[in-house]
């Protein structure tokens, strides 16, 4: 029994010892893990420090070698020898005697001075005291005492000044004794300075503590600890190209404008800023963290958080390009997106569409727009044949009672008429906006329809009216009125309808067929269900609300509450920050990653894939477009951005300041409503960047030249337009294009007796002015004009202007041709342009030569003489 007991107790002992050891080991592991395992940044910082040390030391060694090679060390040795000699001289008995004597003198003088200064202070104190009593009691005793005191103060002050002088002179002779050595010492110090600085940097690097680096943004309680590992992200020099030690790419754009100490990292990059235990956690690539880190171009989506207007924003090029897609496909037509309230409809007006197109065409278009032309922006709604016919019936019923087709292949027009039309087509540069046969359409942002098959789509009568005056059919269209004569229009119609035919087109209703009332009602229901009125203006449906959920609840546009319209459907606002758990992946069979970006992409790829009964049509976007568009949507967040970060758009600022936005008024408004200058040009912030900004054209261009140019446009910069812009700025055409001729000057503007070209010129002269550009340039009276011109010519040759500019047949073609510049530009513009070209056009390639004012006058005078066929 006893034996058994003993055995069992020794077994317990073994168990006890075993578990004790396990516990001990575990405890030690816990301590080790907490110190090192969970704090990987310690190693990164230590490594960085070593690398930086190596780099600094290398720097130092290079500097030492350089110092020696340049003979610095010899010079230093010389100086040191000199110093020794000087010191020896200083130590000679004679000098030393003088030195001690002077020192004792200085001591005595200083003592005397100090004594007098104390006396002066005391006296002044007494004076103040007496003055106080006097003002309090007004007794004359005090007054007389004050006078006495004042006198002694004056005398003591004199003494102090004298003693000060003595002390200064002694100090002066003392320093003259040591001046020789001091000068040599200073020389040595400056020689060593560069090296010492480098040495100090090494020492300072050693002193940098290894610690968590945190940026805390108090008002939103954001703590970004990214720099604990990315230790060199905002360093001046790249220490290592390896992650996580690199510098921020393009930091002169991003970090220079967003001080990391103020903005942190995660406002732009998302990710999990607090995490420090592993890269996956910190970058947010872990389960249950909805905001994975944004890298590379995708980061630009965050610009939308704060910048109300990203147009022209440096460093946001990708997202600017992507945002264009929202305008292209008109997402704002169905979804509420703040900032797009004033953008016009993407689709044309449909009220009179029955007078325009063939019924057969309308049905086939409704079934599949891309079948008609590949670049069609209208999405596919997956209508059945019946549904498409019902909708077409409703649309046709607004302007008639029958289904009807016009077959333009019959009654072929006169060949001569077609030839005339063809010439006019080329001359009017229709292909600038319209694509035919896969060519043209350079001005992409106008989104003009592809006309390759238009002859099978519309009837001749409508086309005639349309070309004659587009505004009567569709007010607000981008198509300009060219002021053609009836004859010319006939030619164009003949050319277009015979040239651009669809061989596969059917004309089922060449004999009109009555439309059934039931079908019209069905069509109306469908139009309401799918919200056709979102993109197309339809009679009687102007007040319909948007069908789709809002895409962006709030943002930097300072949306007022009453601007939010009622929405039908699921709440989708701030899609870019919606929790992943709340996204409805629904009946999707394909497996996609369970994150927000994949959700958005899949939605764009297959809009009705998640659930039954969804109504969003399929835009059949290219994969690249899906990537771009999803990046924009990802940026529509309700991230709590401190208001101090917000950069309101120009319009927003104007609205808040109560400044009305710029509007064209008067007669010019009538002309621009016709000619649509802003399709290509920008004027005062309105319009496109396809053609030059003409906001200050009135100051820049001469009246006669504008007149000639409008009558007969010509290429100003032949090569520049052809040169690819290497993606540095957006939206520039690559092909050689010129402005269409709008035939201005032939007609009077409505309600006035001025011709339209006069109205344009008048507007230029009155409105498009710059206060920076003078009408007259300064004159030099001392030198005769021909001599000034000659000097200007000399300068022109000397500075090599002809490398880029052409005069006559000589010179380069990168810059504008200057052969006729004296007729084109105003002298004030040339004068100011030579001073600082970037003032007028930020991305101009012209170098700044830093001309003096006189030189600019000479050059301007010379350039003004360059006139073609001068009269």
């Amino acid at each position, binding site marked *: 029994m006893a034996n058994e007991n003993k055995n069992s107790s020794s077994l317990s002992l073994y168990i006890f010892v075993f578990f004790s050891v396990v516990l001990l080991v575990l405890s030690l592991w816990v301590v080790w893990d907490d110190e090192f395992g969970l704090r990987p940044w310690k190693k990164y910082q230590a490594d960085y420090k070593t690398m930086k040390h190596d780099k600094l030391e290398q720097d130092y060694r290079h500097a030492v070698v350089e110092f020696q090679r340049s003979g610095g060390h010899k010079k230093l040795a010389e100086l040191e020898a000199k110093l020794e000699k000087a010191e020896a001289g200083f130590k000679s008995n004679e000098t030393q005697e003088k030195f001690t004597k002077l020192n004792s003198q200085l001591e005595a003088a200083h003592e005397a001075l100090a004594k007098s200064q104390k006396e002066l202070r005391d006296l002044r104190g007494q004076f103040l005291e007496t003055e106080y009593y006097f003002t309090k009691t007004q007794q004359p005793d005090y007054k007389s005492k004050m006078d006495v005191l004042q006198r002694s103060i004056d005398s003591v002050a004199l003494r102090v000044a004298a003693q000060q002088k003595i002390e200064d002179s002694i100090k002066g002779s003392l320093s003259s004794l040591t001046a020789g050595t001091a000068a040599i010492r200073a020389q040595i110090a400056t020689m060593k300075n560069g090296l010492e600085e480098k040495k100090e940097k090494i020492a300072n690097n050693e002193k940098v503590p290894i610690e968590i680096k945190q940026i805390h943004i108090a008002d939103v309680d954001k703590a970004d600890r990214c720099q604990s590992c990315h230790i060199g992200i905002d360093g001046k020099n790249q220490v290592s190209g390896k992650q996580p030690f690199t510098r921020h790419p393009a930091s002169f754009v991003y970090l220079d404008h967003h001080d990391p100490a103020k903005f942190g990292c995660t406002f732009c990059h998302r990710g999990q800023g*607090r*995490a420090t235990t592993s890269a996956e956690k910190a970058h947010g690539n872990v389960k*249950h963290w909805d905001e994975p880190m944004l890298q590379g171009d995708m980061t630009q989506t965050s610009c939308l958080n704060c910048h109300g207007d990203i147009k022209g924003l440096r460093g946001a090029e990708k997202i600017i390009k992507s945002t264009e897609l929202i305008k292209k496909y008109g997402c704002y037509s169905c979804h509420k997106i703040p900032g797009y309230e004033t953008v016009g409809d993407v689709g044309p007006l449909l009220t009179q569409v029955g007078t325009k197109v063939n019924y057969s065409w309308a049905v086939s278009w409704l079934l599949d727009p891309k079948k008609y032309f590949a670049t069609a922006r209208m999405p596919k709604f997956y209508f059945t044949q019946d549904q498409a016919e019902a909708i077409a019936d409703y649309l046709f019923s607004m302007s008639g009672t029958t289904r009807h087709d016009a077959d333009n292949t019959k009654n072929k027009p006169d060949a001569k008429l077609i030839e005339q039309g063809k010439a006019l087509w080329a001359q009017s540069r229709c292909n600038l906006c319209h694509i035919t046969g896969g060519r043209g359409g350079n001005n992409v942002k106008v989104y003009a329809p592809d006309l390759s098959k238009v002859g099978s789509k519309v009837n001749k009568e409508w086309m005639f009216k349309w070309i004659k005056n587009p505004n009567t059919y569709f007010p607000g269209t981008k198509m300009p009125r060219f002021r053609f004569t009836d004859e010319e229009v006939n030619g164009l119609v003949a050319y277009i309808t015979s040239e651009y035919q669809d061989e596969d087109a059917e004309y089922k209703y060449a004999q009109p067929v009555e439309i059934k009332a039931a079908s019209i009602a069905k069509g109306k229901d469908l139009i309401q269900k799918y919200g056709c009125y979102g993109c197309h203006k339809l009679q009687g449906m102007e007040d319909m609300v948007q069908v789709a959920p809002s895409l962006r609840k709030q943002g930097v546009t300072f949306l007022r509450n009453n601007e939010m319209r009622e929405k039908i459907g699921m709440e989708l606002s701030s899609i870019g920050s919606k*929790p992943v758990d709340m996204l409805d992946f629904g009946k999707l069979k394909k497996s996609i990653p369970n994150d927000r970006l994949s959700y958005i992409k899949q939605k764009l790829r297959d809009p009705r894939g998640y659930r039954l009964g969804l109504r969003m049509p399929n835009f059949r976007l290219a994969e690249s477009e899906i990537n771009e568009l999803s990046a924009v949507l990802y940026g529509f967040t309700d991230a709590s951005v401190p208001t101090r970060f917000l950069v309101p758009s120009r319009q927003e600022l104007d609205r808040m300041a109560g400044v009305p936005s710029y509007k064209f008024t008067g007669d010019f408004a009538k002309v621009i409503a016709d000619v649509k200058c802003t399709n290509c040009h920008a004027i005062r912030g309105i319009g496109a960047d396809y053609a030059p900004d003409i906001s200050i054209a009135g100051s820049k261009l001469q009246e006669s030249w504008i007149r000639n140019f409008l009558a007969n446009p010509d290429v100003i910069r032949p090569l520049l337009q052809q040169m690819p812009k290497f993606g540095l700025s957006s939206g520039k055409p690559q092909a050689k294009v010129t402005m269409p001729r709008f035939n201005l000057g032939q007609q009077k503007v409505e309600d006035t007796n001025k011709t339209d070209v006069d109205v344009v010129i008048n507007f230029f002269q009155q409105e498009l002015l710059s206060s920076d550009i003078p009408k007259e340039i300064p004159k030099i009276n001392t030198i005769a004009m021909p001599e000034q011109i000659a000097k200007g010519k000399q300068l022109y040759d000397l500075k090599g202007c002809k490398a880029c500019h052409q005069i006559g047949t000589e010179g380069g073609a990168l810059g504008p041709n200057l052969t006729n510049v004296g007729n084109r530009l105003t002298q004030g513009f040339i004068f100011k342009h030579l001073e600082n070209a970037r003032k007028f056009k930020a991305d101009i390639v012209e170098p700044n030569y830093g001309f003096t004012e006189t030189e600019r006058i000479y050059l301007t005078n010379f350039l003004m003489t360059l006139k073609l066929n001068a009269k």
Partner: protein
Amino acid sequence: MKSLPEITDKVKKNLIWKSVFRRDYRNTVRDRAQAVFGNVFLHLHPVQVRESAVKLRFTWGMGGITLFAFIILVITGVVLMFYYHPSIDQAYTDIKDLEFQVPFGVILRNLHRWGAHFMVIVVMIHMFRVFMTGSYKAPRQFNWGVGVILLVLTFLLSFTGYLTPWDQLGFWAITVGTNMGAATPLLGYQGPFSEYLHITPYNDVRFALLGGAQVGGNALLRSYIWHCVAIPLVATILMMVHFWRVRKDGGISKPQK
């Protein structure tokens, strides 16, 4: 020079020493009894335990292990309270900081979390054992009752602690849990009879639990106070009663002969 015994005498024979160490540690029955009588913690424990009662195969030691888990939870919980603010702005980030920044924060939080899961499991096994061995029968029926209340308190501790990290899991767990309260007869506004008793979302049990009509800052604060103060206090008192009853009812239940 004093000899070692003299020094020992000097150190030991004074009031301070004696008030801390009240007895010797000789292995006699008297000293052992004194050790129990003189110690408040051991006083809860019986002086003598039958050998058969500590046989693991009968009791599984689950009651004792539950107490052990509770003690761990109290200790880690108190330390966690140093790092935690029960406000909706800070709660989640505080938990994140425990994971990333606080020294030994990871083991601290994980001990508390896993300890809580462990306690719930162990307490249920304990109850199962008591039931299977028939230990709820007279004279232990009162202690069974106390035990059931303690079980509910354990669940409530677990439930209230669930919300404190203020994450999606906790948020929806509390939403669902309190909605059950809202559907309870006579207590919730969605339950039967609520219209006769004029129970609305603003005066029912759910409102009382959440401190409002939905899960928000008040719910978090209430959870926190229930979790850290109120329920542990009640549970501690009931535990003392529970242990005391064990002794009064004849010690830990043991196999019948």
